[in-house]
């Protein structure tokens, strides 16, 4: 691609846990992703930024098997993989926490943490075991804001819900965790709690891709940043080599350019 000048992109390493290569996604006439290539180093936190509609969520959904790419391939741990379902991707070690968290309000915290992988002594659920294991998992991740794992998710705060959703993925032994806007609509305190949680996840050796809009928070927690613009990745730098100003300028520049083009077309 002509836009991919070498200085704007980091070099692949032998230790990339996940590589997404030349992925495109079209919905009928609409093209959501154009030849996107992205790599995730083992144990790193990668920030995926870009304006609304840039294709971030689509990319995440393809990686986690919820949707399938129109073309392109994925390499996990050196082996090419294709996922036709979320369950398959999860079995391979890729898990996702969606923006809507996929929590069931009417169920308890521990049922949510075990959703779709409940231990069963046929035909009954092993509720006691789930309750203990869920409590243990939350304790080990330092999530202490819950009164009880018996609480219904409906009674939790936004931060608590996010923490449960993240804990659920960690707890299921995933190797790659995708977080779709975990910081959206969080207060300052809750945001800090989630960032702590992401660091915890990283310490456990899990590689993370995190979608976020707040570049300050992104740089605080991420090792590397990719920018997605109009369905293409246009920027890929280590966090230490960039700054909030640079990231903001990149996005604003895109907006300006689009505006100028529109004005030129109008005149």
């Amino acid at each position, binding site marked *: 691609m002509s836009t991919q000048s070498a200085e704007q992109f980091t070099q692949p390493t032998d230790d990339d846990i996940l590589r997404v290569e030349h992925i495109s996604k079209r919905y009928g006439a609409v093209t959501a992703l154009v030849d996107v290539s992205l790599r995730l180093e083992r144990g790193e936190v990668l920030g995926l930024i870009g304006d609304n509609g840039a294709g971030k969520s689509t990319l995440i959904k393809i990686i986690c098997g*919820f949707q399938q790419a129109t073309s392109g391939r994925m390499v996990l741990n050196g082996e090419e993989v294709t996922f036709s*379902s*979320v*369950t398959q991707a*999860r079995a391979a070690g890729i898990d*996702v926490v*969606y923006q*809507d*968290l*996929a*929590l*069931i*309000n*009417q*169920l*308890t915290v521990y*049922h949510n943490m075990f*959703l*779709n992988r*409940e231990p*069963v002594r046929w*035909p*009954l*659920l092993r*509720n006691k075991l789930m309750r203990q294991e869920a409590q243990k998992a939350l304790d080990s991740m330092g999530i202490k804001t819950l*009164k*009880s794992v*018996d*609480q*219904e998710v409906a*009674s939790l705060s936004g931060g608590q819900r996010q923490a449960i959703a993240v804990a659920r993925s960690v707890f299921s032994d995933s190797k790659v965790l995708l977080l779709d806007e975990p910081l959206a609509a969080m207060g300052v305190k809750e945001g800090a709690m989630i960032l702590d949680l992401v660091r915890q996840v990283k310490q456990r050796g899990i590689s993370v891709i995190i979608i976020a809009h707040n570049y300050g928070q992104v740089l605080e927690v991420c090792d590397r940043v990719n920018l997605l613009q109009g369905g293409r990745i246009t920027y890929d730098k280590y966090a230490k080599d960039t700054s909030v100003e640079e990231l903001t300028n990149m996005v604003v520049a895109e907006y300006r350019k689009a505006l100028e083009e529109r004005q030129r077309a109008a005149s």
Partner: protein
Amino acid sequence: MLIAVIVFVYFALTVPEFVSHGSFVNIAEYMGPYVIIGIGLVLVMVCGEIDLSVGFVWTLSPFIMHFFIDSGFPTLLAIVVSVLVCSLIGLLNGVVTTIFGVPSLITTLAVGYVVFGYTLTISHAQQINLPAQSVGVGRWFGAEAWSEIIWASVLVLLFHVLLRRTRWGLYTVSVGGNLLGAREAGIKVNGIKIGNFMMCSSLGALAGILEAFKNDIIDPSAGQLAVVLTGIAGAVIGGTAMLGGVGTMIGMWFGMLVLGELQDGFNLKGISAYTYLIIEGAAIIVFMIINTYLSKLRGSGRLVGTSSSRSTPRRKAARAID
């Protein structure tokens, strides 16, 4: 439960005959079939759908049983086969609703008409007598006074366990509580819905057969939409939400008990059937207001010291409503 007790005490104090064997049999016979379709309706409603066709399955199933007995099947086998055949109606409901995306209110209304039309066609809209050889087995299936409520109550307990203690139940709540979330978690949401529609139709079929034995006649004017609506009313009084995700079998049982008590009590009081409808409608609204108010109270109460308790707030609320 609270409401059931209040209604009981009210009638016990105002109508002397209310506390008598005959009156209890009345309530039990009234409740039986409604509890059975209520189970199916709770399943379908908890996963966020509705089934209006179940009352027409109720109408159809004894005719199917009659057909199989005529074809030489022993009665018991004929009952089982009819129930299984009727589950295919649920399959149709489920497939049209999930795969073709038609709202279940419409799907099941349409399927209900088809089923009813078919029933009228094969029966020529005529009542028929039960086959003579089925009478013995029939005593176990509705003819004997308490048999229906025993079937109903055993089924309630079984399905209570299904809904509260198994994966199927957990997924049913998940699908009704957060459809997209359940799908994202990898739950096969269409399968869950279709399965619940099938169970609902099967239960409707069983209720229809029990009613035929109880009334000693197979009647093409039995069942229909009226029983579905009563079934829904009982389920809702018992704490089942129309929007999905919430509902209990035990609560539904007590909801039906309330309706049974009302029916029996007003009957004994000598209130005419016309006036009774007015009172029943008003009573349902009053109970629902009380329920809504009570669960709001629980909702705010859960903020205080629930952590030591093993039971969830919702379960407690449900228990209070029972």
